[in-house]
């Protein structure tokens, strides 16, 4: 009986061996996949096991953490002035995950980032609790407040403001907005209801949409700044005060349609300066069709169109189409037809002009801090492109300043400060059936020649008839307040 006994012994050994192999497979080979499995609640338990690090504006946290009870998540996220900052912070919810900065910098905020490994190991040895690091943003609290309050008074819309010389994002507001605190926990009655109520299908206002980065609007006449830059750079009209050969009325090439101007302005053979001052559709439409699709597209790309920008929060790509008929290029060149831009994109256009033609890469995270406030990573300003020569940029600046001094943008004037701007009203919808968007892009220039802020504002216009004035009437005052807030901070 011993021979089969030995075989049974081997059989039992094989059973145990199979278990050992399975153990190695699960706990060594597949361990990482299982740890990151979407059903693995440990990830969220771990994420909320200690107070989350903060997102910091002007040296003060705009986020916080509160201890919760009755749940396996120990801490939940709180937000100070949540709706105002939501387009910057995003949300971190125990039940619904995280997005934007909260998600992108999750490693730092939870303290799980590899760069904190050494510190965490030390903490483990000394018995300290693990802590999250901080994200220090480039934002300007006063500018953000001016932007958000301004939008709140006037309706749906968004504001993006940039420091032209560095690309630092100073304000990023979207209205209507939401309070990320309202669904930061995971209770089914309170947090889930708040979340459901905010979803687009339940709320046509779509408050969770980050309009400053994720919504592309037809830019309307503000796009004429890009067209003007293309005209200068391509040598079409090197002198801003030289008359352009623009007939009035002007029939778009290949069509019998006449391009109309808003209001009765001196647009016939107007110079670039005058055309921008009165926002002449005929002049810029003709420039676009004269330059052609390729040159216009190239210039738009130089300004950042057609590519996504990572600030590090992703901003949608703005649109300027290719393969268009000359008449379509003409319409696109005045910001209609297919052209669409995010508020951030138009702020980049204004900032490139203000920064003497050099476009800086926009960014909103200044540095990442370890829990002990050591800097882990510092963002350095980076040049994205140079859409304009310094000379042409200064020409364009003087043109934009004319718009504010004696054109459509007079509502943005700030005493003692040179302001350059451009208004816009973008019609959209079939046969302009929907409310137009009132745009204003601008920059401020101080007496020392430095330019602290470029801003783009878009507001959904309640009064559709006022034509180009609405950009100046609705959007420009907000831009003015934002610029004043930044300048006020400087002084």
């Amino acid at each position: 009986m011993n021979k089969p006994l030995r075989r049974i012994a081997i059989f039992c050994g094989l059973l145990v061996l199979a278990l050992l192999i399975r153990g190695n497979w699960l706990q060594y080979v597949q361990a990482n996949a299982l740890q990151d499995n979407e059903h693995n609640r440990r990830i969220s338990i771990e994420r909320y096991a200690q107070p989350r690090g903060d997102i910091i504006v002007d040296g003060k946290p705009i986020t916080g953490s509160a201890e919760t009870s009755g749940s396996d998540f120990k801490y939940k996220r709180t937000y100070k002035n949540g709706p105002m900052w939501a387009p910057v912070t995003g949300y971190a919810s125990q039940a619904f995950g995280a997005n934007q900065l909260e998600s992108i910098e999750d490693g730092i905020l939870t303290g799980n980032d590899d760069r904190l490994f050494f510190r965490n190991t030390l903490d483990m040895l000394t018995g300290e609790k693990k802590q999250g690091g901080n994200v220090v943003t480039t934002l300007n609290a006063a500018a953000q407040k001016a932007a958000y309050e301004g939008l709140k008074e006037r309706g749906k819309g968004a504001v993006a403001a940039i420091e032209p010389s560095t690309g630092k994002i100073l304000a990023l507001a979207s209205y209507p907005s939401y309070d990320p605190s309202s669904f930061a926990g995971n209770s089914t009655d309170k947090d889930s209801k708040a979340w459901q109520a905010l979803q687009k299908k339940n709320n046509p206002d779509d408050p969770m949409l980050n309009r400053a980065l994720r919504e592309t609007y037809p830019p309307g006449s503000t796009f004429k700044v890009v067209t003007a830059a293309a005209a200068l750079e391509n040598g079409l009209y090197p002198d801003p005060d030289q008359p352009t050969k623009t007939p009035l009325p002007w029939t778009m090439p290949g069509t019998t349609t006449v391009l109309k101007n808003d209001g009765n302005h001196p647009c016939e053979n107007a110079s670039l300066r005058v055309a921008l001052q009165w926002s002449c559709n005929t002049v810029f439409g003709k420039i676009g069709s004269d330059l052609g699709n390729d040159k216009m597209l190239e210039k738009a790309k130089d300004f950042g169109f057609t590519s996504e920008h990572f600030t590090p929060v992703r901003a949608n790509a703005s649109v300027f189409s290719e393969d268009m008929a000359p008449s379509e290029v003409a319409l696109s060149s005045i910001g209609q037809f297919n052209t669409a831009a995010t508020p951030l994109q138009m702020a980049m256009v204004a900032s490139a002009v203000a920064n003497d033609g050099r476009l800086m890469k926009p960014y909103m995270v200044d540095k990442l801090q370890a829990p002990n406030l050591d800097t882990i990573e510092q963002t350095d300003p980076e040049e994205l492109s140079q859409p304009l020569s310094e000379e042409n940029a200064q020409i364009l600046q003087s043109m934009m300043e004319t718009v504010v001094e004696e054109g459509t943008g007079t509502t943005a004037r700030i005493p003692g400060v040179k302001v350059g701007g451009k208004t816009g009203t973008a019609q959209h919808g079939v046969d302009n059936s929907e409310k137009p968007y009132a745009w204003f892009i601008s920059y401020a220039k101080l007496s020392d020649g430095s330019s602290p802020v470029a801003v783009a504002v878009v507001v959904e216009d309640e009064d559709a008839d006022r034509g180009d004035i609405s950009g100046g009437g609705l959007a420009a005052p907000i831009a003015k307040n934002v610029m004043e807030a930044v300048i006020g901070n400087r002084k």
Partner: protein
Amino acid sequence: MSSTTNTPTHHTSTIGSIGTPSRRNTELALLVFAVVIPVFAYANVGLAMEGSVPSGLLGYGLGLGLLAGVGHLVVRRFAPYSDPLLLPLAALLNGLGLVVIWRLDQSERLQQLAERQYGSFSPSAPNQLLYSAVGLALFVAVLVFLKDHRILQRYTYISMVAALILLLLPLVPGVGADVFGAKIWISVAGFSIQPGEFAKIIIAIFFSGYLMVKRDALALASRRFMGLYLPRGRDLGPIITIWAVSLLILIFENDLGTSLLFFGMFVIMLYVATERTSWIVIGLLMSAAGAVGVASFASHVQARVDAWLDPFGCYETSGACEQIGQSIMSFGSGGVLGTGLGQGHSDLIGFAANSDFVFSTFGEELGLAGVMAMLLLYALIIERGVRTSLAARDPFGKLFAIGLSGAFALQIFVVAGGVMGLIPLTGMTMPFLAAGGSSVIANWALIGILLRISDTARRPAPTPASNPDAEMTQVVRPT
């Protein structure tokens, strides 16, 4: 051990019998480890979860030490030549099981779950300590009252009846209790008992006694067909009966584990008794046929097979794989070194975390290293059991020991394989680790019996009387 003429009075076999040292001091030294390691583990859990050494540490240490000490003294007195490893291994596993059950008692999540489901929460660790004491008492009783395991031969058929009654008891209305789909419990005077755990030992007595008598008939009277020795039709009777009973258990009690255990144990013992590989082939074919047949009818089994094939697939839809999915994630999240005792989240598994799924907590908190160590502890118990069987001088003892060790090995495989997702989940308990009285008590008795057999096997034989005739009466069989 090929002689069939041995009687208890003729110690003609010489396998491993002469001059075996008793090794009782080795056992004592190992027992010290078996007590100290769980005590450290207990302190570790307290420090990790509460930040202080648990107040019950001294009591726990003394209790475990007392159990081990009593076990040791009884072995020293009543089974002095028995295997020195089995008792320390069982004590270590039992001690670690207690620690982990206590650790899961501290889980707020499980406490809340119990309050929602039953209205109140009662910790399992104190009960488990009590059951361990009862288990040890049974262990002591086995060693004290069972002077010679061969006495059990007398009760061959009584054992069969007893085992069948125990197995089928859960089906009796009023006594059986349906707990989460598996009818493997009976409820007596407020206590829940899993009779299958006891039936495991008792049916091994029947198989051993029966096969010892019938093995020659089963082995020799056969026809050769395609290289296999096929048994005669009438000899197929017993295996078909056991097969049918296993299927009945599976179908009516929804208990895949017990069913597999009994049939597997019988096939192993049949193979050892007859030395005929054909029995293994026939057994495998029959279990495959039974498994496929039942799986295509019973929805309970189907659901478990589905959950096994895709542990995360039915997460959103039915939640039927919630437990196995959680268990697998526990193992994965533990990684190589584990999170440390008290610092994992294996309580996410839910209500069976400290019983059927107790091994997952080891997986998460002790990691791959801990899992391999635990599996090797079990492997050592099995190895000592098989060794006992090899050393035993009488066929009954051999069969009994291999039956118990084989069943033990199958149980480990079925339970650990189930919670690790290697095979479909079954509702059995990890011996010594899982919370639950029946399992702990029955397994302590099992260890007691193995010690008794090994004591008999390793006891130095009296100088054998010269008996040349014994060597000449061997039965010659075709090979």
